[in-house]
């Protein structure tokens, strides 16, 4: 096996990892700041994919339809996230994890049936514009040019979140709220509004991931269930609430998956679960996380 093929497989793992990062980033952010484990996160990712199809369908006569649909989906999902936080999530902040599970699991069922009602059961397909429709030559191996865009988007989101949380005033407030909600509240900063913003941002990123996923294959019901497990593995490995952890966790899962497919295809998923189980045993809060708050 020559080196170019190993590089191609490595790139394939990076692109898979970046897609997982985009899905898991919002999940981790919401848990880290709000202590809410949103089991419906992947379902909202799927809503993002369907929504992008609708935007693309409306705008398909324009050459930038696909790009515009990604932007509009991200913004719309932010608004949807805001509504969900205000109407539902806000009421369970002080409840047990089991109640969070029940509520967010209920959301999965509602969203699943809602998608069937709104978009039907047919597959949806978004054709790509020419610039990302043809493979590029990567060390002599063809590589899907769209995945270059996926990787760049993943890196941009990572940089944006890092900049936002570390360098802006709002980011400082959010990080302070992670450690002491009471203190932040005592300073006159409205915690509920901060939480609404964080939840909206998390869901907007899920929407962005869904919109980016849409032109890769066809959009189908049940897609969310096939990624949700790997997304949870990412945050468990990286550490719930840690941006860096989610990024590293996503790359680990992506590369483990890619190379286990290359070397032992039957056991591709087993390796991911073995890594996840190992981390859970030796460091339950993940590689870059901190022990969970009570």
């Amino acid at each position, binding site marked *: *096996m020559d080196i170019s*093929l*190993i590089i*191609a*497989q490595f*790139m*394939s*793992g990076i*692109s*898979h990892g970046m*897609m997982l990062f985009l899905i898991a980033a919002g999940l981790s952010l919401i848990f880290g700041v709000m202590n809410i484990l949103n089991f419906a996160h992947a379902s909202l990712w799927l809503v993002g994919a369907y929504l992008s199809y609708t935007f693309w369908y409306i705008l398909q006569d324009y050459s930038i339809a696909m790009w515009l649909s990604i932007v509009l989906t991200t913004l719309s999902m932010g608004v949807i996230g805001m509504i969900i936080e205000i109407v539902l999530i806000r009421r369970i902040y002080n409840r047990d994890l089991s109640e969070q599970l029940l509520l967010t699991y209920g959301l999965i069922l509602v969203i699943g049936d809602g998608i*069937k009602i709104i978009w039907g*059961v*047919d*597959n949806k*397909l978004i*054709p*790509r514009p020419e610039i990302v*429709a*043809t*493979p590029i030559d990567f060390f002599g*191996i*063809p*590589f*899907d040019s*769209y*995945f270059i865009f996926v990787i760049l988007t993943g890196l941009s989101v990572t940089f944006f979140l890092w900049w936002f949380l570390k360098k802006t005033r709002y980011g400082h407030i959010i990080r302070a709220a992670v450690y002491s909600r009471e203190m932040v509240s005592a300073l006159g900063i409205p915690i509920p509004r901060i939480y609404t913003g964080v939840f909206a941002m998390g869901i907007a990123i899920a929407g962005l991931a869904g919109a980016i*996923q849409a032109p*890769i*294959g*066809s959009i*189908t*019901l*049940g*897609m969310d*269930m*096939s*990624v949700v497990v790997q997304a949870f593995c990412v945050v468990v490995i990286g550490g719930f609430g840690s941006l860096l952890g989610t990024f590293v966790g996503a790359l680990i899962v992506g590369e483990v*998956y*890619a190379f286990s*497919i*290359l070397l032992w*295809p*039957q056991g*591709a*998923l087993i390796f991911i679960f073995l890594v996840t189980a190992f981390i859970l045993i030796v460091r339950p809060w993940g590689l870059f996380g901190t022990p969970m708050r009570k």
Partner: protein
Amino acid sequence: MKKFKFMPFLFLFIFLVEGMTGLNCGKKDDTYNMGVILSITGAGSIYSKDGVDALELAVAEINAKGGFLGKHQIKLIIRDDQTKPDVAVTVAKDLILRDKVKVIQGTYSSACAEAIKPIARENKVLHIAAISNSENITKVNFSPYTFQVVPNSYMQAQAVVLGVGALAKKNNWKEYVTIASNYEWGRSTQNNTVALLKKSAPNLVLKKEFWPKLGETQFTTYITAIMAQKPDFVIGSIASQDNASWMKQAGDFGFFKKIPYPGSLISVTELILQAKTIDRGTVGLCRAPFFAHMDNPIMAAFVNSFKTKYGRYPSDWAVMEYDAVYALKQAVEKANSIDTEKVREAMTGATIETTRGKLTFRTIDNQLSCSSYIGIVADDPKYPFPIYKDIVEVKGPDSWRPEQEIVDARKTEKK
């Protein structure tokens, strides 16, 4: 009068018993309840949608003429198994016990078909598999109530071997890899193909097998991993939504331009969905392409009705579900009854008229003698999507497993 005080209770008792046992004062229900279990959602939804449409069309046509035997209207009860065997079992029981169906048409997934087979047998309900085609559905753990109107995985594998063997010889191919969905049908088809290729072309070397899970949406890592093997060709056993995703993503990678992909399942659904992008010249396999039988008046009429009603051409899945209803109709007519035992007996070994010609159910396994089709993807001005040219129709009796092997397999099963 005191002794009649119990009368209200007696009436109440009779009323309750009647309610519970479903007595309806001698009124006979002539409706024929036909249950359908397909994957309305989940990995098999693309194929299943066409199947449901064809079933509805066939039932509407028969009901317009009075129903079975001109007097039994068919009531179609459609359930979604979500491509999950446990759900299929639940809905099968519900259809049998609550809706009192006499037949279950379906399913998409072979795992679902195998899951509901024993339930249909226990309850003496007919079960016609028109999409799911693992040969194990009828080969082992045989049920006299289960019939298959689709070429099974062994028959399809034989057809692939025929086509691929010729191509391998012509192009001097030496090594290949396989990619198959990791569930009953994918494993069964892949294993049969590899075993038969080993027999017919012993020089071909299987380099690696890839098993993406059922419902896989991201094939990127598989595509690069297959390319890394540098095989002379690839054989795929992926279906429905997974196949749509695989074909699109592999196409976007330029995979099919680099590596021949002969004899893999490219049904009419894929030809329509991938009309713009599918590589012309690809050698594909399908189960019931309507364009191969347009000279048959039954097929021509079906295509016309389907197109008029739904505004599109029928896929393989639509053709086979349509045939399943008419197979049942002909068995009912032969039995001159809708009694399940009589219909089952009439259907066993029956020769029936279908959209694909005159076909016979083989007695040993209730497998219909339907053909598999191999062809080269090419444009045709008559259709808005590519079809197959130079079609090789591999007839059922030329491709199905020899009866003795089935007998042997069942003996092993008993041990």
